[in-house]
């Protein structure tokens, strides 16, 4: 059961309940295959640094989950098939990353603030 982080970019024309529906769809997919969702964090509409598929703004969604290594293939197929998804990225989290996300969520100051001014 590794820790993964999924970041998905949806088209900006997505309505609120479609956004929730697709979030739920992917989260259910994770839990159905024996995974466990740690946290889900929709960022909502954000402007992109460069146009993706002729769109300059997009809806971001970040989710952290535990899962089997072979599950990611199934998730990727679903993500590629969904045309509302512009782009997605699944990253493996090592223990420092998991701890960093944990502290970020719980408001505990992560070490990075100190490094900002250096």
């Amino acid at each position: 059961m590794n820790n993964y982080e999924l970041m998905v970019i949806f088209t900006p024309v997505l309505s609120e309940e479609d956004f929730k529906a697709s979030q739920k769809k992917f989260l259910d997919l994770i839990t159905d295959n024996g995974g466990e969702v740690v946290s889900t964090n929709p960022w909502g509409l954000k402007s992109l640094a460069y146009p993706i598929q002729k769109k300059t703004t997009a809806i971001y969604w970040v989710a952290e989950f535990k899962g089997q290594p072979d599950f990611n293939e199934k998730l990727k197929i679903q993500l590629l098939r969904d045309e509302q998804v512009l782009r997605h990225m699944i990253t493996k989290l090592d223990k420092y990353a998991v701890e960093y996300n944990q502290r970020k969520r719980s408001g505990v100051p992560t070490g990075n603030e100190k490094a900002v001014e250096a």
Partner: protein
Amino acid sequence: MAKANEIKYLTAIKQEKRAKKFCRFKKYGIKYIDYKDAEFLKKFLNEQGKLFPRRLTGNSLKFQRKVSEAVKKARQMGLLPYVTDLLK
């Protein structure tokens, strides 16, 4: 014409001692560089959005690679531009 080294200054020129560069990640004990944190990653990008070399950032090799990986992931996810004219 007095050559450069013959010019005597009244007071010795104090060469401005450049501060010793250090790896901020090792010093502050940071272990994970988050690719989602675009503001922090911008410190390692120049005006055009290109990565600074190690001799400018002062990072150790291990963390320079982690920074470059994080920047490339952020670029892939549209958080940082691949190339721009005025990033700051």
